[in-house]
């Protein structure tokens, strides 16, 4: 997993050099910060044990970093936009065709990506699979990324849903997250320690990350072309 993260960092930085237009430094910083958050999570807390038992408190700190903070930072880095600008034209065209194809269209729809992410979380924590290692971690990062990307739509998406649908999907995803946290609080997975603290941490932390995401979503809407044009219309 560490190798993957390093490779992703190197590829992004290399792409900014090849990019046909100047690339904002803040986006590069967001990408590297997102990868660092993911790296910190997998290096320690995600698989932490306390006294021979899986430690849910530490795990949830890792979950917040890997499944929520890292995806948000990575989405803000707009990697698809960078790829489209840095790749040779033929490859960029192939990529944009791929992004318009049916599977990508599905996965970038908030009404698909957000429920998929939420269902994945319920499955992982309901079955105890959350402790299973790198593949699960990769899933957490990827599905978190897709859900956040579908809501924020920083990168070009084939079918952009309206702001109300995206905000609603985000809220529904947060609700599923909250309910799951309280269920884990009430019924901790067998053999784990620190479930109560972990549930509270992931509940409160999830609220903060969702708030930030919602604020970014509405800010982008407020500053967006459509809303500005509508507001400028004479009454």
């Amino acid at each position, binding site marked *: 997993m560490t190798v993957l993260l390093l490779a992703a960092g190197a590829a992004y930085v290399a792409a900014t050099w090849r990019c046909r237009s100047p690339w904002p430094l803040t986006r590069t910083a967001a990408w590297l910060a997102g990868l660092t958050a993911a790296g910190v999570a997998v290096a320690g807390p995600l698989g932490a044990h306390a006294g021979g038992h899986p430690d849910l408190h530490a795990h949830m700190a890792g979950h917040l970093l890997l499944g929520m903070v890292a995806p948000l930072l990575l989405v803000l880095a707009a990697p698809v936009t960078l790829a489209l600008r840095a790749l040779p034209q033929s490859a960029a065209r192939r990529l944009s065709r791929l992004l318009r194809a049916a599977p990508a269209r599905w996965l970038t729809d908030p009404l698909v990506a957000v429920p998929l992410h939420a269902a994945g979380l319920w499955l992982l924590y309901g079955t105890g699979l959350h402790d299973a290692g790198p593949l699960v971690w990769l899933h957490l990062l990827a599905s978190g990324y897709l859900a956040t990307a579908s809501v924020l739509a920083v990168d070009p998406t084939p079918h952009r849903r309206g702001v109300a649908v995206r*905000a609603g999907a*985000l*809220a*529904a995803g*947060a*609700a*599923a*997250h*909250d*309910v799951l946290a*309280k*269920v884990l*609080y*009430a019924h901790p997975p067998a053999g784990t320690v620190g479930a109560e603290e972990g549930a*509270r941490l992931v*509940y409160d932390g999830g*609220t903060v990350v*969702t*708030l930030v995401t*919602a*604020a970014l979503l*509405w*800010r982008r*809407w*407020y500053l967006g072309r459509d*809303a500005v044009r*509508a*507001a400028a219309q004479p*009454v």
Partner: protein
Amino acid sequence: MSDGPARPAARRRLLVSGLLLGLGTAGAVDEIVFHQLLHWHHFYDRAGGAAGLVSDGLLHAGTFSAAVAGTALLADARRRGRFLPPLWWGALLTGAGAFQVWDGLVHHKLLRLHQVRYGVDLTGYDVGWVLPGVLLLVAGVVLLRRAGTAPVR
């Protein structure tokens, strides 16, 4: 603020903004004052069933999302130069009252998700919880009627 009748779309935006911010504000006050500062409420007291947990999760996520959305819509409504105080305040109070009444009746009593306070006789607290909500709701609806808009269309 410019004069003249507001367009229906602008009125609706203001109404929605007020309702959402009312919900969000009441939710935030509940969370900050009673959960965090006074510690009267509990994160989960294990008394409520699954329906309570789902309703609580929806309400929690819904209120803070509503606060953000309401703020953005208010900013947009003001940018359009149409701010109608009775309409917006009426909607705000209606939203806040609706939250308070729902929280007091459905969450505390029907689903028994958590109580206002523990280890004391609850009657006074429950009345003190729901009554202000009803008053807010009534004040909000009165203001909305005066603004010439029915609360529900």
